[in-house]
C-alpha cells in the first residue's frame, strides 16, 4: 500500500490573491491636475503602494485595456488593486470612468474611489450608487489613503484566507477518499 501524505503543508507559492506583490497594493490614480497628480502619487508611495498615474479617464481606460483597442496587457498581468480618480475632468469625468469600470466584467471588482474638491451631496450619492468604494474630499489626506489601504489589505487577506481554507478542505477531502479507497 502506497503511503499517502497528509496534506498539511500546502503549497502557497501559487497564491491566487490579486495583490501585485505580497505587500504592495497597486493603485491607478487619475487626475487632470499636474499638481494633484504629484501630490496623490506621493501620498500613495508614502503609504507603501505601487502607483501608476494618468492624466485622463481616457488614458486610464487605455491602460486597463478597456478602450476597445486590444493591444494592452490582460488583466492577470495588470493586477490593479484600487483606482482613485478625480471627479471633474475635461472629456470623460471620473463618474463616467466609474461607470465604465463597473460595466466591465473584467474590472468591475476593482474598488474605485472618487476624489473631488466640491462637497456636493447629490454628486456623492450618485457615485456611491454607481458602486464607488468611497468619496474623498480634496485635498486628500494621508490618513484617508492609509485608511483605504488598510481596509483593502484586510479585504485581500480575507479573500486569500478563504481561498486557502477552501484548498485545505479540498485537499483533506481527496486524502479521505484515497484513504477509503485503500490505495
Amino acid at each position: 500500500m502506497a503511503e499517502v501524505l497528509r496534506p498539511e503543508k500546502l503549497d502557497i507559492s501559487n497564491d491566487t490573491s490579486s495583490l501585485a506583490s505580497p505587500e504592495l497594493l497597486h493603485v491607478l490614480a487619475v487626475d487632470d491636475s499636474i499638481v494633484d497628480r504629484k501630490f496623490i502619487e506621493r501620498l500613495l508611495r508614502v503609504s507603501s503602494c505601487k502607483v501608476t498615474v494618468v492624466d485622463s479617464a481616457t488614458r486610464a481606460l487605455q491602460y486597463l485595456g478597456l478602450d476597445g483597442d486590444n493591444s494592452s496587457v490582460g488583466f492577470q498581468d495588470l493586477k490593479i488593486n484600487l483606482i482613485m480618480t478625480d471627479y471633474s475632468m475635461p472629456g470623460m469625468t471620473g463618474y463616467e470612468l466609474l461607470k465604465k469600470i463597473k460595466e466591465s466584467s473584467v474590472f468591475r471588482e476593482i474598488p474605485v474611489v472618487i476624489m473631488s474638491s466640491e462637497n456636493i451631496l447629490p454628486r456623492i450619492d450618485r457615485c456611491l450608487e454607481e458602486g464607488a468604494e468611497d468619496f474623498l474630499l480634496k485635498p486628500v489626506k494621508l490618513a484617508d489613503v492609509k485608511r483605504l489601504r488598510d481596509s483593502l489589505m484586510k479585504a485581500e487577506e480575507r479573500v486569500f484566507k478563504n481561498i486557502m481554507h477552501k484548498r485545505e478542505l479540498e485537499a483533506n477531502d481527496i486524502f479521505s477518499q484515497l484513504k477509503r479507497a485503500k490505495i
Partner: protein
Amino acid sequence: MQRQVALIKQSLFDQGYLDEQFMELEELQDDANPNFVEEVATLYFKDSARLINNIEQALERGSFDFNRLDNYMHQFKGSSTSIGASKVKTECTMFREYCRAGNAEGCLRTFKQLKKEHATLRKKLEQYFQLARQAGPKEIARRPK
C-alpha cells in the same frame, strides 16, 4: 540661519499666505525626497502661470464667457488648495462668485488682486526655499522614520 528660515515660514502662516495643507506637504518629505514641497511648488507656479495667461486672454477678448472663466478658476482654485496657497484660494473663490453672478467688473477687479497675491506668494516661497536649502536639511520638516 535656520532660525531665519523658521521665522520666514512662521510669518507666511501668520499672515495667511499658507495654510495647514502646506504642512501636510512637508510631512510627506523624507531623506529620499527632501525637496518634495519645492517640486510641488514649482509645478504649481508653472501651471498657474499658464492658467493666468489663459484667463488674461479670455478677459482681453472682451466678451465674458463666464463658464469658461469659471472653469479655469476651478482648476486654479484646485491646485492652490492642494499646495496650501490660502490667499490665492480666497481670490479664486471670489472670482468664481463674480462669474456666477455674471459680474464682469468684479471679475476684473478680483483677477487683478489674484495676480498680486500669486506674485507675492511666488516671491516669498522662492526666498523661503532658497534659504531652506542654504540652511541645510535640518530645517525641512520631515516625516519620522
